[in-house]
């Protein structure tokens, strides 16, 4: 008995030391003594939720009639493409997760300009390389091309349905109306805005494009975009560029011209560069559009929330203060009501807080406001476990048992109630987690994770830590002869 108790004390002490190390540092490294290489290198920064630190949360949903038809792997590919797109905007710490059958939750900490991000997310993007001859349409104008989406075997039905423009063989009213006025309205360039509803030839689509990268140009201060072609596109491109040197090849995204470079020389080797008046940013932006043009599943934004950093910082400061006051009152109450065991329970509560923070940082859970609520509830339950045990302890002491017996009986009798009440809470947590995960309800999910974790840690501290502390104190200081210390 004594031996196992000492073992627990050592385990607890080691855990506390480790936890404090994690709690107080933002990055932990453990070196392998044999080859001097880092064995563990982990970022242990506490992750704060968007509702606390400010930022943008966007919920995307597949833009299809029936969510059951969405292929989960296609949705995941969509998520990856979207993530690459926004990563390319230079935003750090983006998290993007699929939720259920047809939703994607995207979180952008620190972002307050939602428009740029959401715009980039919402591009459905059919990328075409269009023969413009010698007179290109200005950037931004709408074009009608001869590309028929159905021809592309790789694209799903959903995508091919998304681009609206159909081939316009005769002068149907709509495409004409959109093409010409825009071309005229744009100042500069394109004096010959051609006849209405001119159908341009699509040389190839983004599907034939291989890698795209940005590199410093040969001219000082300018950037260019290097690209390679897949084998399917190499021949087409070689033939076309050979016969069209000096003419314009427009890059068209969703029937809108995004760039109209001129063909300087034939590109026969399957790789080339786009030169122009690019800065790093515009070059990157174009590269992103080239790289991640089409999505396997079209998506639309159904929910978008921006929290300003001022609201977040204010909430944090006030909540932390309030939480500290609340905890101080609880600690005081326990000490006054339960005397010695109360003080020991308080120490166990501090241990609980240290351990929980460590787990949060190690696993990388995000701390949000609902999560905090779950945590406060779990603190309540941690205290409750101690209260249950001490009430039992008092009863056993009143019944005339000696201290040693009373402690052991108190624990064993309180255990079924602690076990059953916490099990039911854990059951609730699991169901809420599954629900929150499936429907993209991140609030419910965060709450259930924090509460569930809190319950598990509180079980450990109440049943093992408190008991070990109590024995440590009682075995070394003969306080057992003073019933007043136990509030009797």
């Amino acid at each position, binding site marked *: 008995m004594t031996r196992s108790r000492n073992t627990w004390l050592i385990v607890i002490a080691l855990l506390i030391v480790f936890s404090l190390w994690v709690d107080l540092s933002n990055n932990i490294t453990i070196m392998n003594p044999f080859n001097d290489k880092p064995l563990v290198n982990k970022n242990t920064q506490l992750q704060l939720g968007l509702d606390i630190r400010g930022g943008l949360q966007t919920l995307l949903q597949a833009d299809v009639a029936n969510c059951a038809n969405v292929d989960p792997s296609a949705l995941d590919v969509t998520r990856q493409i979207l993530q690459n797109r926004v990563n390319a905007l230079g935003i750090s710490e983006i998290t993007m997760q699929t939720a259920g059958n047809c939703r994607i939750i995207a979180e952008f900490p620190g972002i307050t300009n939602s428009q740029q991000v*959401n715009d980039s997310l919402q591009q459905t993007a059919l990328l075409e390389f269009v023969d413009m001859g010698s007179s290109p349409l200005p950037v931004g104008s709408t074009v009608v091309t001869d590309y028929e989406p159905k021809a592309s075997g790789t694209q799903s039905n959903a995508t091919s349905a998304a681009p609206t423009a159909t081939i316009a063989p005769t002068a149907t009213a709509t495409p004409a109306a959109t093409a010409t006025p825009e071309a005229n309205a744009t100042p500069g360039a394109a004096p010959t805005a051609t006849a209405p509803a001119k159908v341009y030839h699509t040389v190839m689509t983004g599907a034939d494009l291989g890698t795209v990268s940005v590199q410093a140009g040969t001219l000082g201060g300018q950037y260019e975009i290097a690209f390679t072609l897949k084998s399917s596109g190499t021949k087409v491109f070689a033939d076309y560029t050979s016969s069209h040197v000096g003419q314009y090849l427009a890059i068209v995204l969703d029937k809108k011209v995004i760039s109209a470079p001129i063909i300087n020389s034939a590109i026969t080797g399957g790789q080339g560069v786009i030169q122009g008046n690019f800065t790093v940013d515009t070059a990157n932006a174009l590269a992103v559009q080239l790289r991640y043009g089409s999505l396997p599943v079209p998506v639309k934004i159904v*929910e978008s929330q921006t929290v*300003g950093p*001022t609201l977040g910082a204010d909430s944090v400061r*006030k909540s932390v203060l309030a939480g500290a006051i609340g905890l101080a009152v609880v600690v005081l109450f326990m000490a006054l009501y339960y005397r010695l065991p109360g003080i020991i329970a308080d120490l166990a509560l501090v241990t609980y807080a240290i351990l929980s923070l460590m787990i949060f940082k190690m696993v990388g859970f995000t701390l949000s406001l609902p999560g905090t609520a779950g945590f406060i509830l779990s603190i309540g339950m941690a205290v409750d476990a101690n209260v249950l045990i001490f009430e039992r302890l008092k009863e056993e002491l009143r019944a005339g048992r000696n201290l040693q017996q009373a402690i052991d009986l108190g624990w064993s009798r309180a255990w079924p109630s602690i076990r059953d*009440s916490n099990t039911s809470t854990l059951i609730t947590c699991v169901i809420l987690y599954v*629900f929150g995960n499936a429907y993209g309800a991140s*609030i*419910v999910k965060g709450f259930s994770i924090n*509460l569930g974790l809190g319950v598990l840690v509180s079980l450990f501290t109440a049943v093992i830590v408190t008991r070990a502390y109590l024995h440590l104190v009682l075995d070394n200081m003969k306080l057992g002869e003073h019933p007043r210390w136990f509030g009797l």
Partner: protein
Amino acid sequence: MNIIKNRYLYFLISLLVIVPGIIFMILHWTSTGQGPLALGIDFKGGSLLEVQFAGTLPSTGTISALYTQFSTPQEPIANPIIQPLGNNAYSIQSAPMNDATESSLLAAMKTRTNGAVTVLNFTSVSASIGAEVTRAAGIAILLAAIAILLYIWFAFRSVDHPVRYGTAAIIAMLHDVFVVLGIEAMLAYFLHWEADSLFLTAVLTVIGFSVHDTIVVFDRIRENANIYRRVDYETMVNHSVVQTLDRSINTQLTVMFTLFALALFGGDSIRHFVIILLVGIFSGTYSSIFNASPILVVWEKQEWKTWFRRKAEA
């Protein structure tokens, strides 16, 4: 102390809170046709813009006019609901709008007020998703209730009629849910509070706490049922409730201390949430002492057989 003896008084007290709450919910439903509670935009769809003005604070009329100006058939954002937020900010609710509209609105506000306009919070939710989340939350709570019922049934298999314990715990839980919903409906009427997703979290918390609390009391009954085999059921249940009373009150106090601190010092954004939690936690303790255990006694004695007779005599 005899708590079980006055069980019908305690049931009456519960009804005195729940019935008015239900009336307020019905009133809201019949007057607006939008369900029992005033829902926030997370559930009903719409956009919420909270902006702070560094320049001159515009009147609500000016903001309303701007919204009307940018209103389109696709985004009918005219006639927004505007509420002041502190002394230099507004909270504005309207139909859902996209980011482009928001940007134009902010730009227009900036020109009007000759100063920086800071967005504290901008949320836009399309109408379809809210209804789905509400329905899914309802299903999740239902599933959780069934799972808890089954677990208690299993955990209490050593006593007679274990299914009663599970059922009573679920009834007590529903009691707390109705208390919280009712209070929310009243607050919606008097203070124009809206049920948002934080409210949903609060309800979930209350459910967790309620069942937790009830099981602790029931555990004592389970233990005593095997010790005091000759004592009649009502006395044994009462004894168990009284034995756990200190613990029930102390546990509740510790949670309430933290919540009171959060309500007083925690800032505006979570006050609504914390107050609902306070109500729910209080109700959870009340129902575990004064409803859950008495229901066991009512069931054991099958008292419903005499309810109507009593009424006939009175």
